[in-house]
């Protein structure tokens, strides 16, 4: 009983794994292998790498990234609310405003302590 219910998920899992693994295997099988020094170089977006790969990012990157994610998620919440705005009514409107206010406070805080200023 339970097995049959989860069968679909299992098949999906197998398919997903297969989807990722199949090209790799295929390349291994059919592609000709003629390595040259030029081909062996590390390629990153078509540019030659400079210095160490493991470099340290500025801490501020993370703060920016975090703020970005927060507002990204905010949008995710805003869409369904906006879509059913009429049926949800005033209460949901107030709640969403509270939610936005909280995020705004966060932004104001980040601004005020100078987290947004690139130093």
């Amino acid at each position, binding site marked *: 009983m*339970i097995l049959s219910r989860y069968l679909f998920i299992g098949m999906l899992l197998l398919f997903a794994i297969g989807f990722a693994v199949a090209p790799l295997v295929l390349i291994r099988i059919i592609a000709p292998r003629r390595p040259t020094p030029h081909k062996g170089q590390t390629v990153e977006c078509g540019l030659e790498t400079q210095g160490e790969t493991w470099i340290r990012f500025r801490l501020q990157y993370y703060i920016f990234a975090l703020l970005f994610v927060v507002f990204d998620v905010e949008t995710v919440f805003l869409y*369904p609310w906006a879509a059913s705005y009429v*049926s949800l009514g005033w*209460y949901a409107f107030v709640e969403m405003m509270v939610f936005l206010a909280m995020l705004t406070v966060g932004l*104001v805080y980040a601004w005020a*302590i100078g987290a947004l200023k690139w130093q």
Partner: protein
Amino acid sequence: MPTVPVIPSVWPSSSEWFFLSPVLLMAFWGVLVLMLDVLVLRNRTLLSTRAKWLGLTSLVGALAALGLAVGLLWPGVLATDVLSANEEFFNGTIAFDAASALLQVVGIGFLVLVIGLSMTWVFTNEQGEYYALLFWSAVGMILMIEAEEFMTLFVALETMTISIYILTGLETGSKRSSEAALKYLIYGSAASALFLFGLSWVYGLTGTTRLAAVGRALVESRTVEGIGGQWTSGLALLLVLAGFGFKVASVPFHQWTPDVYEGAPAPVTAWIASGSKFASFIAMIKVLMLALGTWSVDTGHLQSPGWVVILSILAAVSMTYGNLAALGQQNFKRMLAYSSIAHSGYLLVGVVAIGVSSQRTEATGAVLYYLCTYGLATLGTFAVAAWLAHDVGSDQIDDLNGLGFRRPVPAFCLAILLLSLIGVPPLAGFFGKMLMFMEALNAGGNGGIALTWLVVVALLNSVVSAFYYVRVLKALYLRQPGPAIGKSFPSGVIWTLVIAAVATVGFGLNPTALLDPLGGAGISLLTSPEPASSGRPVDSNGITQSATVPENPAQTQVPVAPAPSASAR
């Protein structure tokens, strides 16, 4: 297919908001303090001025919240029918009962004392953040106490803990503080993950996240096919216990305790040891009794002993380990940290007592009594630790030498608190221990001697604990005054000490004054709100009669309005 229950209104009523007003006020006040700092005071005033104003603002806010919470307790403020436990409050996610109303007063009371203590010194540049986080951790704490549902519980718990992680690391220029915060964060995240994983197992087994519904589903699962997974139940129980074990600092989840207690700014340590422990134990009692009550003993579903046995062992080990480890400490804060592990052990005896006692509500009252009085005693002792750390610049017990002669009042108060922690009658600590142990012996049905071994271990542990507490007493009264003694006591410390000592003596001489309301709170704490909307017949044990249909998660979890256009909140 059972009919979809109709929920009349998904929106909380005004009285529900009113009930939450202390929490809302604190959440708002945290924002206010933070904004006051970053927008007005920072970069304009000296750090000390800033600290003073922010501290005062915070104190006002906390006192206002305390006033609101006390006001809610006032007879007639909330209609009694509203305060009954059977009400659907915030759709059954939050307990709207006498226990919540009373315990939030205690929690906010702790907050007031901690804020008072924090105002005494300027130990961080992040003043606004510090007070805001104190408020928000208090919000998490109180919601955790009131939570009736796993998700609310978990979110509240994380609100509290994450705030405390940051608070731990806020001491400016202290490497130990940062180290402690990191340790706390890593251990704590792992424990939270385990806890959440355990909750998800429970959800998987029962199809609901409400404590009461989980409890009912587990009772029903004895008869319903497929739900009582064998090892899954045992694993779920262990995971949940691990999560709580970390929060309450019981062995073997205690490793963070000494470092965090030592490294964190002393007022924050006081807050962890009083407030966080208070809330965690209450949440633990609720989850274990309301949701996982069936698993208190092995009914053949667990593949492991029930939580009564597991917690008994944890209690015995925690007490013994904590006390023995404290024996060797020269550092006052570390000693208190280990002693706090030992006290977690005593409290776990109380939790076990709730599981076995024939008088569960009274046993709960006893544990709550111990939590309140222990919290106060801890606040007092950590106030002294804070004084040592900030005004003397040391954490050693030796630095308290001769305090009894130079500063008689604080030393005397500290002595009372330490005696109470040993469990000397007629102080509150003694009654707390005594009442919990008595309830542990009060098991119905099996001759009352089943847990005697645990109580014997606990009592012998109290004797061991006397040894290290007396070392502090010895430093206070038997040593020649050292250089530290010249430092005066700031009024924040004195106030905390005096309040704690007076409460310790007062509630010791007249324990009934505190026990009666807390016993009443125990009743409502162990009573879960019945889903008023489900309309199913409920028998006197609170077990839903229609046992043949397992609860559909969609019905309990998400209130669905009948109109197709309405969406879930």
